[in-house]
């Protein structure tokens, strides 16, 4: 698939966050979005995921047939979308049934993020980093070409960050697309960097 963004502008509660944003991404390509806090990185991902309407511009996904773009992507936001009362395995089984396009089983996905031992623990008992890994394991239970990752390395230890980068590389080599908003450098081959956000000016009304 291919995703093309043209002249995108975003306004949150009347304040212009960014404007005139254009980029295109083809199979096997990664885009790393950087910018200061509040620059609109999360808003950009929300717009791409169809959760937020852009102020101007358009997002187009090609090569996914009749499906809307929202059904061809994974969004792992800064909230993990997990329920504390469900176990890690149950959460992934639910995501698999919900999203369709099933790929790995919940057990295999947890194995891949190094959490096989925690499969039967309620998510509430897991640490922030482990919860993050369960959320990232969702990328593997359903096969979707576009990954939108918001601060994917937050709360992860060094080993888990390496695992994540390996997963992203594998996804890219299979023809997937990755758009990640991050502060930490992501060692992805051939990733383009997109800096968003205006530099704050004197008298910039909040």
């Amino acid at each position: 698939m291919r995703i093309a963004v043209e002249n995108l502008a975003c306004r949150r509660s009347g304040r212009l966050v960014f404007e005139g944003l254009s980029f295109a991404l083809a199979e096997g390509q990664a885009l790393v979005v950087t910018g200061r806090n509040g620059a609109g990185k999360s808003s950009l991902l929300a717009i791409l995921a169809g959760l937020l309407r852009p102020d101007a511009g358009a997002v187009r996904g090609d090569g996914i047939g009749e499906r809307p773009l929202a059904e061809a992507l994974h969004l792992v936001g800064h909230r993990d979308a997990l329920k504390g009362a469900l176990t890690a395995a149950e959460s992934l089984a639910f995501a698999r049934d919900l999203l369709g396009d099933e790929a790995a089983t919940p057990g295999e996905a947890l194995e891949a993020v190094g959490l096989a031992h925690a499969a039967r623990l309620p998510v509430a008992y897991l640490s922030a980093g482990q919860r993050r890994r369960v959320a990232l394991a969702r990328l593997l239970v359903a096969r979707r070409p576009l990954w939108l990752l918001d601060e994917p390395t937050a709360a992860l230890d060094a080993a888990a960050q390496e695992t994540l980068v390996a997963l992203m590389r594998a996804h890219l080599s299979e023809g997937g697309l990755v758009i990640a908003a991050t502060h930490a450098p992501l060692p992805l081959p051939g990733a383009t960097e997109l800096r968003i956000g205006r530099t704050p000016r004197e008298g910039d009304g909040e």
Partner: protein
Amino acid sequence: MTRAFLALIARDLRLAARVGGSGALGLVFFLMIVTIVPFALGPDLNLLARIGPAVLWLAAVLATLIGLDRLFQADEEDGSLDLLRQSPLPLELVVLAKAVAHWLTTGLPLALASPLFGLLVALTPPGMAAMVATLLVGTPALTFIGAIGAALTSGIRRGGLILAILVVPLMVPTLIFGVSAANAALGGTVPFATPFLILSALSLAAAVIGTAGAAAALRWGE
């Protein structure tokens, strides 16, 4: 799509059944109201039997309101709503699945437990049967009407009060026809079928309007 729909119902039922879930909340609240009313009214069995259906219906309305504010708010807060929107399920069916799960854990137990609670307000056996029938048919209307309010207030912290103010007036017709159907079964000039059919119609209409309305509110609310 069916699989995603059933998975969502199963997840909500499981969450309701787990520790800290809302499973028994409505039922316990229902029991509290129904037990406390006879103490307040005194030992007048005739009076109790006459207002029994009204007390049970009132308790059912209030018990439905308990926990309704978390219907979409919980998913909104932890990001699950964003996940649900990546599924092939249209938002209307997401709302329908969540409302069905809510009814299965709130309305259905209330209807099934009403004969037991009917004892506390001196209902006769035909009265109990009428209560089960009217609650079974009428509580879906309460859930679906409540779903609109829950969707509108999903982004508001402590939105429970606003939710109650929004939806209680809309629940009044259901309450009126529910009580009058139950009373008609106990005697009187009105045949049981008339208010009962209107009650069924209210539930069917609420199922359509509530699903579409709540989905629209969720879309608009982002």
